């Protein structure tokens, strides 16, 4: 993977938020640098409030860094960018639209014909194994299926990189495992470059190629761990591998969680 082109580069990115009262600025992330290469699945883990979601907003172009540069395929990010797809814990499906119309949503700002939009949406639904539900409304689907529909919508814009911000957090334990597998299959088969933001250490281990560990606020990257495990397309196989546990233990000590619990 080392020699493939980089899709996303963060170079010394700092983000400060000014308190509403005009008080001292809050530093959310501090001099974060990272690279995500083509086809790679990178997970960012860290305690809550470490600025994980700030990274996502910056990469999506919804917010600007205070310092540093963000490059997407070597082009600086200067605003919302059609080649970034992002997904949150909430599925953000529009309840008044059918599933296929929801998948089309991301394409509606583009100059493509209605027929092509529909065709692409149906193709993504097939890829996410939701073809039977194209005409259903979101409330008719389970939480897991809604997240798959959200993934289909994200993939429909053919992004250079997909940002996943804790997309499995709101689901129950079993649905989560099934969905992790479903996402891993879809992502692996399409070789989509992915940045996963999560606080679930096991999730990071079973889904990614590489894990970046962030410190508490102000968020810095304190460790980088390549995950040397087979079966990236099948988290259910990884989860039972003894070495997966070792990675999680390593992450636990890296985040100093045991000391904090004591």
């Amino acid at each position, binding site marked *: 993977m080392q020699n493939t082109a980089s899709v996303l580069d963060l170079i010394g990115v700092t983000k400060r938020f000014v308190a509403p009262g005009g008080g001292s600025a809050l530093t959310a992330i501090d001099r974060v640098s990272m690279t995500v290469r083509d086809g790679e699945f990178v997970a960012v883990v860290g305690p809550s409030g470490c600025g994980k979601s700030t990274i996502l907003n910056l990469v999506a172009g919804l917010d600007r860094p205070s310092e540093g540069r963000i490059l997407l395929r070597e082009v600086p990010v200067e605003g919302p960018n*059609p080649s970034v797809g992002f997904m949150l814990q909430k599925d953000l499906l529009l309840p008044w639209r059918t599933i296929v119309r929801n998948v089309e949503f991301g394409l509606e*700002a583009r100059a493509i014909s209605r027929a092509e939009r529909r065709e692409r949406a149906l193709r993504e639904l097939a890829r996410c194994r939701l073809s*039977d*539900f194209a005409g259903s409304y979101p*409330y*008719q689907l389970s*939480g*897991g299926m809604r997240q798959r529909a959200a993934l289909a919508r994200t993939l429909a814009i053919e992004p250079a990189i997909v940002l996943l911000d804790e997309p499995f957090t709101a689901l129950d334990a079993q649905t989560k495992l099934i969905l992790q597998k479903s996402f891993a299959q879809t992502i692996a088969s399409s070789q989509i470059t992915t940045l996963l933001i999560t606080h679930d250490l096991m999730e990071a281990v079973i889904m990614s190629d590489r894990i970046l560990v962030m410190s508490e606020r102000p968020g810095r990257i304190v460790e980088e761990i390549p995950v040397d495990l087979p079966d990236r397309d099948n988290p259910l196989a990884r989860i039972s591998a003894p070495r997966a546990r070792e990675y999680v233990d390593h992450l636990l000590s890296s985040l100093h969680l045991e000391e904090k619990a004591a």
Partner: protein
Amino acid sequence: MTSPDISAVNQGRSAFGTERVATLPEPVAPGHEAIGSAGALGSRTSILFASIAFGIVFLLIWQFLPPALGVPSFIIPTVTDLAHEFTRMVARENLLKHILSTVTIATAGFIIGSLLGAALGYVLGMSVLIEKVLSPYLLGLQIAPKVAFAPLFIMWLGYNAWPKLIVTILVVFFPILVNVLQSMKTVDRDLINLARAYSMSRWQIFWKIEVPASMPALMAGLRIGATLAVIGVTVGELVGGNTGLGYLITFGEGQANTAMVFNAIVLLTFVGILLYGAVAMIEARVLHYIPRAVR
């Protein structure tokens, strides 16, 4: 709900065995279930019968109790008195003309007031600046008793349909404005961000997210507006003019014709029910995507 949807969900269940389908196409409200299990098969019909029986008993008491207690019919007319008076009103007082006038003005006022209220609500929702500048005045106007303006409008515009229409527009306007504005301010920020990330323009965000997201609040405002429209038109007719059910109330009062007053009130109530029912029907169509148990 169309059948393909149902079969699709069922297929999904078997195909993705462990993934639960959270909501079935036609979820049953918990309350309904409880009634169903307690009252067995015919619970819904028996409730309907009980309602009708209550109404009949009420009318019977109204018919026979006041005379039995020696209350004269010019204080409380009996049900049959009202029926007689109703046929007389149709024949002698040109009742249909009055009903038509009230229905027309209530409906026109409701539609115009709703359009204006919703339009201003969306404009204020789009522009924080205008909203901040205007909000104290809007709050003041909202609190002011709009029906009290009726005499003013009559002084300005004369004894015709305009004062009634304007009062109706005014009372309908505010609840709809407030509801739409409130919903515009509470649209999920993440949805807006999603649309921004998809490079949508402000205008696209408005049409594709903010307007549909405001529909439940708009419909709630329309329901309130429908009931207020009848109040508005009634007050307008009470204070001026010589047509409409509100006018018949003052006319009946002048003649000490209690039955006429009662009849006019009953008919005004029906006008309100009609308007409210129409809104409820529109709402059921517009908000079809919200499961019934939640709505």
